[in-house]
Protein backbone atom coordinates (compact mmCIF):
# COMPACT_ATOMS: atom_id res chain seq x y z
CA UNK A 1 0.00 0.00 0.00
CA UNK A 2 1.52 3.35 -1.04
CA UNK A 3 0.89 6.20 1.37
CA UNK A 4 1.23 9.95 1.00
CA UNK A 5 3.26 11.89 3.57
CA UNK A 6 0.10 13.03 5.31
CA UNK A 7 -1.24 9.47 5.43
CA UNK A 8 2.03 8.23 6.87
CA UNK A 9 1.77 10.71 9.73
CA UNK A 10 -1.87 9.79 10.23
CA UNK A 11 -0.93 6.11 10.35
CA UNK A 12 1.63 6.74 13.09
CA UNK A 13 -0.98 8.59 15.16
CA UNK A 14 -3.49 5.75 14.67
CA UNK A 15 -0.89 3.16 15.70
CA UNK A 16 -0.11 5.11 18.88
CA UNK A 17 -3.83 5.32 19.65
CA UNK A 18 -4.16 1.56 19.25
CA UNK A 19 -1.12 0.92 21.45
CA UNK A 20 -2.40 3.27 24.14
CA UNK A 21 -5.81 1.62 24.15
CA UNK A 22 -4.29 -1.83 24.40
CA UNK A 23 -2.12 -0.82 27.36
CA UNK A 24 -5.03 0.83 29.16
CA UNK A 25 -7.12 -2.31 28.65
CA UNK A 26 -4.47 -4.38 30.41
CA UNK A 27 -2.64 -5.94 27.44
CA UNK A 28 0.92 -7.14 28.04
CA UNK A 29 3.76 -4.92 26.83
CA UNK A 30 5.14 -7.50 24.38
CA UNK A 31 1.68 -7.88 22.83
CA UNK A 32 1.44 -4.13 22.23
CA UNK A 33 4.93 -4.00 20.73
CA UNK A 34 4.24 -7.01 18.56
CA UNK A 35 0.90 -5.69 17.29
CA UNK A 36 2.29 -2.26 16.37
CA UNK A 37 5.31 -3.88 14.72
CA UNK A 38 3.17 -6.15 12.55
CA UNK A 39 0.74 -3.41 11.60
CA UNK A 40 3.52 -1.02 10.60
CA UNK A 41 5.18 -3.70 8.49
CA UNK A 42 1.84 -4.47 6.81
CA UNK A 43 1.66 -0.80 5.72
CA UNK A 44 5.02 -1.10 4.01
CA UNK A 45 7.39 0.12 6.73
CA UNK A 46 10.98 -0.89 5.99
CA UNK A 47 11.84 -0.61 9.64
CA UNK A 48 9.70 -0.42 12.75
CA UNK A 49 11.16 0.48 16.13
CA UNK A 50 8.60 0.18 18.87
CA UNK A 51 9.42 0.85 22.49
CA UNK A 52 6.64 0.36 25.02
CA UNK A 53 6.68 0.71 28.76
CA UNK A 54 3.59 1.11 30.89
CA UNK A 55 3.86 4.91 30.92
CA UNK A 56 5.21 5.67 27.43
CA UNK A 57 5.03 4.46 23.84
CA UNK A 58 7.68 5.51 21.32
CA UNK A 59 7.35 4.43 17.70
CA UNK A 60 9.72 5.11 14.81
CA UNK A 61 8.66 4.13 11.31
CA UNK A 62 11.01 4.15 8.34
CA UNK A 63 9.27 3.83 4.99
CA UNK A 64 10.76 2.40 1.82
CA UNK A 65 11.70 5.79 0.37
CA UNK A 66 13.69 6.66 3.51
CA UNK A 67 11.12 8.94 5.14
CA UNK A 68 11.31 8.50 8.88
CA UNK A 69 8.74 9.43 11.51
CA UNK A 70 8.99 9.26 15.30
CA UNK A 71 6.24 9.99 17.80
CA UNK A 72 5.81 9.28 21.46
CA UNK A 73 2.78 9.03 23.70
CA UNK A 74 2.73 9.55 27.46
CA UNK A 75 0.20 7.30 29.22
CA UNK A 76 -1.26 8.88 32.33
CA UNK A 77 -4.73 7.31 32.65
CA UNK A 78 -5.13 4.50 35.18
CA UNK A 79 -5.01 0.93 33.89
CA UNK A 80 -8.02 -1.34 33.82
CA UNK A 81 -8.90 -4.76 32.44
CA UNK A 82 -11.11 -4.65 29.37
CA UNK A 83 -10.75 -7.97 27.58
CA UNK A 84 -13.49 -7.22 25.05
CA UNK A 85 -11.64 -4.12 23.86
CA UNK A 86 -8.39 -6.14 23.57
CA UNK A 87 -10.26 -8.73 21.52
CA UNK A 88 -11.68 -6.05 19.21
CA UNK A 89 -8.29 -4.37 18.74
CA UNK A 90 -6.72 -7.76 18.04
CA UNK A 91 -9.34 -8.44 15.36
CA UNK A 92 -8.71 -5.01 13.85
CA UNK A 93 -4.96 -5.60 13.72
CA UNK A 94 -5.42 -9.02 12.12
CA UNK A 95 -7.75 -7.52 9.52
CA UNK A 96 -5.29 -4.72 8.89
CA UNK A 97 -2.30 -7.03 8.51
CA UNK A 98 -4.23 -9.09 5.97
CA UNK A 99 -5.57 -6.15 4.03
CA UNK A 100 -4.32 -2.70 5.13
CA UNK A 101 -7.08 -0.10 5.22
CA UNK A 102 -6.54 3.65 4.63
CA UNK A 103 -5.01 5.26 7.79
CA UNK A 104 -8.03 7.54 8.33
CA UNK A 105 -10.33 4.48 8.27
CA UNK A 106 -7.96 2.69 10.67
CA UNK A 107 -8.13 5.64 13.10
CA UNK A 108 -11.95 5.59 12.97
CA UNK A 109 -12.11 1.81 13.42
CA UNK A 110 -9.74 2.03 16.42
CA UNK A 111 -11.99 4.67 18.01
CA UNK A 112 -14.94 2.31 17.65
CA UNK A 113 -13.14 -0.40 19.62
CA UNK A 114 -14.01 1.19 22.96
CA UNK A 115 -16.18 -0.99 25.15
CA UNK A 116 -17.82 0.09 28.33
CA UNK A 117 -19.47 -2.23 30.82
CA UNK A 118 -23.12 -1.24 31.31
CA UNK A 119 -24.21 -0.30 34.83
CA UNK A 120 -26.42 -3.38 35.41
CA UNK A 121 -23.61 -5.70 34.26
CA UNK A 122 -21.12 -3.80 36.43
CA UNK A 123 -23.34 -4.23 39.50
CA UNK A 124 -24.25 -7.87 38.83
CA UNK A 125 -20.61 -8.73 38.04
CA UNK A 126 -19.36 -7.10 41.25
CA UNK A 127 -22.01 -8.85 43.36
CA UNK A 128 -21.31 -12.26 41.83
CA UNK A 129 -17.55 -11.84 42.18
CA UNK A 130 -17.65 -10.60 45.75
CA UNK A 131 -20.35 -13.00 46.98
CA UNK A 132 -18.77 -15.93 45.15
CA UNK A 133 -15.37 -15.30 46.72
CA UNK A 134 -16.79 -14.87 50.24
CA UNK A 135 -18.25 -18.41 50.03
CA UNK A 136 -15.19 -19.67 48.12
CA UNK A 137 -12.91 -18.67 51.04
CA UNK A 138 -15.07 -20.63 53.47
CA UNK A 139 -17.92 -18.27 54.36
CA UNK A 140 -21.57 -19.24 54.64
CA UNK A 141 -24.25 -18.31 52.11
CA UNK A 142 -25.23 -15.44 54.43
CA UNK A 143 -21.65 -14.13 54.25
CA UNK A 144 -21.83 -14.44 50.47
CA UNK A 145 -25.08 -12.47 50.35
CA UNK A 146 -23.64 -9.81 52.70
CA UNK A 147 -20.45 -9.53 50.60
CA UNK A 148 -22.65 -9.08 47.50
CA UNK A 149 -24.50 -6.21 49.24
CA UNK A 150 -21.22 -4.56 50.34
CA UNK A 151 -20.00 -4.95 46.75
CA UNK A 152 -22.79 -2.55 45.78
CA UNK A 153 -21.30 -0.01 48.18
CA UNK A 154 -17.87 -0.49 46.57
CA UNK A 155 -19.51 0.02 43.14
CA UNK A 156 -21.06 3.24 44.40
CA UNK A 157 -17.64 4.43 45.56
CA UNK A 158 -16.03 3.41 42.27
CA UNK A 159 -18.57 5.48 40.36
CA UNK A 160 -18.65 8.53 42.64
CA UNK A 161 -15.39 8.68 44.59
CA UNK A 162 -12.88 7.35 42.05
CA UNK A 163 -13.36 10.20 39.52
CA UNK A 164 -12.56 12.84 42.17
CA UNK A 165 -9.57 11.03 43.71
CA UNK A 166 -6.15 12.15 42.45
CA UNK A 167 -4.95 8.55 41.94
CA UNK A 168 -5.75 4.89 42.57
CA UNK A 169 -3.67 4.76 45.77
CA UNK A 170 -5.77 7.42 47.51
CA UNK A 171 -9.00 5.91 46.17
CA UNK A 172 -8.08 2.45 47.45
CA UNK A 173 -7.19 3.77 50.90
CA UNK A 174 -10.40 5.82 51.29
CA UNK A 175 -12.72 3.22 49.70
CA UNK A 176 -11.37 0.34 51.77
CA UNK A 177 -11.56 2.41 54.96
CA UNK A 178 -15.22 3.31 54.38
CA UNK A 179 -16.12 -0.23 53.31
CA UNK A 180 -14.22 -1.72 56.25
CA UNK A 181 -16.03 0.51 58.76
CA UNK A 182 -19.39 -0.40 57.22
CA UNK A 183 -18.61 -4.14 57.34
CA UNK A 184 -17.34 -4.05 60.96
CA UNK A 185 -20.31 -2.02 62.20
CA UNK A 186 -22.75 -4.30 60.36
CA UNK A 187 -21.06 -7.36 61.87
CA UNK A 188 -21.50 -5.80 65.31
CA UNK A 189 -25.27 -5.61 64.87
CA UNK A 190 -25.51 -8.90 62.96
CA UNK A 191 -23.16 -11.31 64.77
CA UNK A 192 -24.01 -14.04 62.27
CA UNK A 193 -21.73 -12.27 59.76
CA UNK A 194 -18.12 -13.38 59.49
CA UNK A 195 -15.97 -10.27 59.00
CA UNK A 196 -12.97 -12.19 57.62
CA UNK A 197 -14.94 -13.88 54.86
CA UNK A 198 -16.84 -10.75 53.89
CA UNK A 199 -13.72 -8.55 53.74
CA UNK A 200 -11.86 -11.29 51.81
CA UNK A 201 -14.72 -11.36 49.28
CA UNK A 202 -14.99 -7.59 48.95
CA UNK A 203 -11.19 -7.13 48.82
CA UNK A 204 -11.11 -9.20 45.63
CA UNK A 205 -12.90 -6.40 43.77
CA UNK A 206 -10.04 -4.01 44.42
CA UNK A 207 -6.98 -6.22 44.83
CA UNK A 208 -4.60 -5.84 41.86
CA UNK A 209 -4.06 -9.62 41.70
CA UNK A 210 -4.31 -9.87 37.93
CA UNK A 211 -1.99 -6.88 37.48
CA UNK A 212 0.60 -8.42 39.82
CA UNK A 213 0.54 -11.63 37.79
CA UNK A 214 0.85 -9.67 34.52
CA UNK A 215 3.71 -7.60 35.96
CA UNK A 216 5.60 -10.70 37.07
CA UNK A 217 5.07 -12.26 33.67
CA UNK A 218 6.42 -9.06 32.05
CA UNK A 219 9.55 -9.41 34.19
CA UNK A 220 9.95 -13.11 33.37
CA UNK A 221 9.66 -12.58 29.63
CA UNK A 222 12.17 -9.74 29.52
CA UNK A 223 10.05 -6.57 29.70
CA UNK A 224 11.80 -5.72 32.94
CA UNK A 225 11.15 -1.97 33.17
CA UNK A 226 7.41 -2.33 32.54
CA UNK A 227 7.15 -5.31 34.85
CA UNK A 228 8.90 -3.54 37.71
CA UNK A 229 6.85 -0.36 37.20
CA UNK A 230 3.60 -2.30 37.20
CA UNK A 231 4.69 -4.40 40.16
CA UNK A 232 5.60 -1.36 42.28
CA UNK A 233 2.27 0.24 41.34
CA UNK A 234 0.40 -2.94 42.38
CA UNK A 235 2.27 -3.15 45.69
CA UNK A 236 1.36 0.48 46.41
CA UNK A 237 -2.30 -0.18 45.55
CA UNK A 238 -2.37 -3.27 47.77
CA UNK A 239 -0.60 -1.41 50.61
CA UNK A 240 -3.15 1.43 50.36
CA UNK A 241 -5.96 -1.12 50.59
CA UNK A 242 -4.34 -2.80 53.56
CA UNK A 243 -3.93 0.58 55.30
CA UNK A 244 -7.60 1.43 54.65
CA UNK A 245 -8.89 -1.86 56.08
CA UNK A 246 -6.44 -1.79 58.98
CA UNK A 247 -7.54 1.72 59.90
CA UNK A 248 -11.18 0.61 59.71
CA UNK A 249 -10.47 -2.35 62.01
CA UNK A 250 -8.58 -0.05 64.44
CA UNK A 251 -11.36 2.54 64.44
CA UNK A 252 -14.03 -0.09 65.07
CA UNK A 253 -11.70 -1.99 67.41
CA UNK A 254 -14.35 -2.38 70.08
CA UNK A 255 -16.64 -4.11 67.62
CA UNK A 256 -14.05 -6.77 66.85
Amino acid at each position, binding site marked *: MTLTEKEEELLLGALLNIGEKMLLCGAEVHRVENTLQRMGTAYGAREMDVFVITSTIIVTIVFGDGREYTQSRRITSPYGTDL*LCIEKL*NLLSRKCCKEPMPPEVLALEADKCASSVSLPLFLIGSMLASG*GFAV*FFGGTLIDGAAAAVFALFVCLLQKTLAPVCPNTVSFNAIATFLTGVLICVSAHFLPVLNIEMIISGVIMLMIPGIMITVSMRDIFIGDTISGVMRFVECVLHAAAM*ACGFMLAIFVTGGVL
Partner: protein
Amino acid sequence: MIIQLICAFVATLGFGMLFGLRGKTLFIGAFGGLLSWLCCLLVMGAQEDAYIGYLAAGAFCSLFGEICARIFKAPATVFCIPAIVPLVPGNSLYRTMAAIVVKDLDGARAFGTATAQYAFSIAAGVSVIWAAFVIAENIFNRKKKKKGKI
Protein backbone atom coordinates in the same frame (compact mmCIF):
# COMPACT_ATOMS: atom_id res chain seq x y z
CA MET B 1 -14.62 -29.10 47.06
CA ILE B 2 -17.73 -28.98 44.87
CA ILE B 3 -18.92 -25.82 46.64
CA GLN B 4 -15.50 -24.24 46.04
CA LEU B 5 -15.62 -25.16 42.36
CA ILE B 6 -19.12 -23.72 41.97
CA CYS B 7 -18.04 -20.55 43.78
CA ALA B 8 -14.92 -20.30 41.60
CA PHE B 9 -17.19 -20.48 38.52
CA VAL B 10 -19.61 -17.85 39.90
CA ALA B 11 -16.83 -15.48 41.00
CA THR B 12 -15.01 -15.80 37.67
CA LEU B 13 -18.29 -15.21 35.85
CA GLY B 14 -18.70 -11.99 37.87
CA PHE B 15 -15.17 -10.87 37.09
CA GLY B 16 -15.66 -11.80 33.43
CA MET B 17 -18.58 -9.37 33.33
CA LEU B 18 -16.42 -6.67 34.92
CA PHE B 19 -13.69 -7.39 32.35
CA GLY B 20 -16.18 -6.73 29.55
CA LEU B 21 -16.56 -10.32 28.37
CA ARG B 22 -19.84 -11.33 26.75
CA GLY B 23 -21.70 -14.48 25.66
CA LYS B 24 -19.69 -17.55 24.79
CA THR B 25 -16.33 -16.02 25.79
CA LEU B 26 -17.68 -15.12 29.23
CA PHE B 27 -18.77 -18.69 29.97
CA ILE B 28 -15.59 -20.21 28.58
CA GLY B 29 -13.57 -17.85 30.81
CA ALA B 30 -15.67 -18.79 33.85
CA PHE B 31 -15.24 -22.47 33.05
CA GLY B 32 -11.49 -21.82 32.84
CA GLY B 33 -11.66 -20.42 36.39
CA LEU B 34 -13.38 -23.57 37.61
CA LEU B 35 -10.83 -25.82 35.88
CA SER B 36 -7.83 -23.83 37.12
CA TRP B 37 -9.02 -24.17 40.72
CA LEU B 38 -9.69 -27.89 40.19
CA CYS B 39 -6.15 -28.24 38.83
CA CYS B 40 -4.77 -26.35 41.85
CA LEU B 41 -6.69 -28.56 44.31
CA LEU B 42 -5.67 -31.81 42.60
CA VAL B 43 -1.97 -30.93 42.42
CA MET B 44 -1.99 -29.54 45.98
CA GLY B 45 -3.60 -32.80 47.14
CA ALA B 46 -1.07 -34.94 45.29
CA GLN B 47 2.07 -32.91 46.12
CA GLU B 48 1.02 -31.55 49.51
CA ASP B 49 2.62 -28.26 48.52
CA ALA B 50 0.50 -25.17 47.90
CA TYR B 51 3.15 -23.42 45.77
CA ILE B 52 3.45 -26.36 43.36
CA GLY B 53 -0.36 -26.36 43.15
CA TYR B 54 -0.42 -22.66 42.24
CA LEU B 55 2.46 -23.14 39.79
CA ALA B 56 0.60 -25.96 38.03
CA ALA B 57 -2.64 -23.99 38.03
CA GLY B 58 -0.83 -20.96 36.56
CA ALA B 59 0.61 -23.20 33.84
CA PHE B 60 -2.85 -24.63 33.23
CA CYS B 61 -4.34 -21.12 32.84
CA SER B 62 -1.75 -20.24 30.22
CA LEU B 63 -2.27 -23.55 28.39
CA PHE B 64 -6.04 -23.07 28.52
CA GLY B 65 -5.64 -19.53 27.15
CA GLU B 66 -3.34 -20.60 24.30
CA ILE B 67 -5.57 -23.51 23.26
CA CYS B 68 -8.79 -21.45 23.40
CA ALA B 69 -7.05 -18.62 21.51
CA ARG B 70 -6.32 -20.97 18.63
CA ILE B 71 -9.84 -22.45 18.63
CA PHE B 72 -11.77 -19.19 18.96
CA LYS B 73 -9.31 -16.89 17.14
CA ALA B 74 -8.96 -14.40 20.01
CA PRO B 75 -5.96 -13.29 22.11
CA ALA B 76 -4.88 -15.83 24.74
CA THR B 77 -5.17 -13.12 27.43
CA VAL B 78 -8.97 -13.08 27.00
CA PHE B 79 -9.16 -16.67 28.27
CA CYS B 80 -6.08 -16.78 30.48
CA ILE B 81 -6.89 -13.77 32.70
CA PRO B 82 -10.36 -14.96 33.87
CA ALA B 83 -8.91 -18.42 34.55
CA ILE B 84 -6.34 -16.86 36.91
CA VAL B 85 -9.03 -15.06 38.96
CA PRO B 86 -9.75 -17.86 41.52
CA LEU B 87 -6.01 -18.18 42.20
CA VAL B 88 -5.59 -14.55 43.31
CA PRO B 89 -4.61 -14.77 47.00
CA GLY B 90 -7.18 -12.35 48.49
CA ASN B 91 -7.71 -14.32 51.67
CA SER B 92 -4.01 -14.53 52.53
CA LEU B 93 -3.71 -10.77 51.94
CA TYR B 94 -6.55 -10.25 54.43
CA ARG B 95 -4.81 -12.50 56.93
CA THR B 96 -1.58 -10.54 56.52
CA MET B 97 -3.46 -7.33 57.30
CA ALA B 98 -5.31 -8.89 60.22
CA ALA B 99 -2.02 -10.18 61.67
CA ILE B 100 -0.51 -6.67 61.44
CA VAL B 101 -3.56 -5.20 63.22
CA VAL B 102 -3.20 -7.59 66.17
CA LYS B 103 0.59 -6.99 66.16
CA ASP B 104 1.33 -10.62 65.29
CA LEU B 105 4.41 -9.76 63.24
CA ASP B 106 5.50 -13.39 62.76
CA GLY B 107 2.07 -14.22 61.38
CA ALA B 108 2.15 -11.13 59.17
CA ARG B 109 5.55 -12.12 57.81
CA ALA B 110 4.39 -15.68 57.14
CA PHE B 111 1.13 -14.67 55.44
CA GLY B 112 2.80 -11.82 53.55
CA THR B 113 5.52 -14.14 52.23
CA ALA B 114 2.90 -16.74 51.28
CA THR B 115 0.86 -14.11 49.39
CA ALA B 116 3.93 -13.02 47.40
CA GLN B 117 4.95 -16.62 46.75
CA TYR B 118 1.47 -17.53 45.46
CA ALA B 119 1.61 -14.61 43.00
CA PHE B 120 5.16 -15.61 42.01
CA SER B 121 4.14 -19.27 41.47
CA ILE B 122 1.16 -18.33 39.28
CA ALA B 123 3.26 -15.94 37.17
CA ALA B 124 6.05 -18.54 36.82
CA GLY B 125 3.55 -21.19 35.65
CA VAL B 126 1.98 -18.81 33.14
CA SER B 127 5.40 -17.72 31.80
CA VAL B 128 6.73 -21.25 31.32
CA ILE B 129 3.83 -22.27 29.08
CA TRP B 130 3.91 -18.94 27.24
CA ALA B 131 7.64 -19.44 26.52
CA ALA B 132 7.02 -23.02 25.36
CA PHE B 133 4.34 -21.83 22.91
CA VAL B 134 6.57 -19.04 21.55
CA ILE B 135 9.43 -21.53 20.98
CA ALA B 136 7.06 -24.00 19.28
CA GLU B 137 5.63 -21.22 17.10
CA ASN B 138 9.11 -20.01 16.08
CA ILE B 139 10.17 -23.55 15.13
CA PHE B 140 6.96 -23.99 13.13
CA ASN B 141 7.43 -20.63 11.34
CA ARG B 142 11.08 -21.44 10.49
CA LYS B 143 10.10 -24.78 9.00
CA LYS B 144 7.35 -23.07 7.02
CA LYS B 145 9.82 -20.48 5.69
CA LYS B 146 12.33 -23.20 4.71
CA LYS B 147 9.62 -25.12 2.88
CA GLY B 148 8.59 -21.93 1.10
CA LYS B 149 12.19 -21.35 -0.08
CA ILE B 150 12.47 -24.90 -1.40
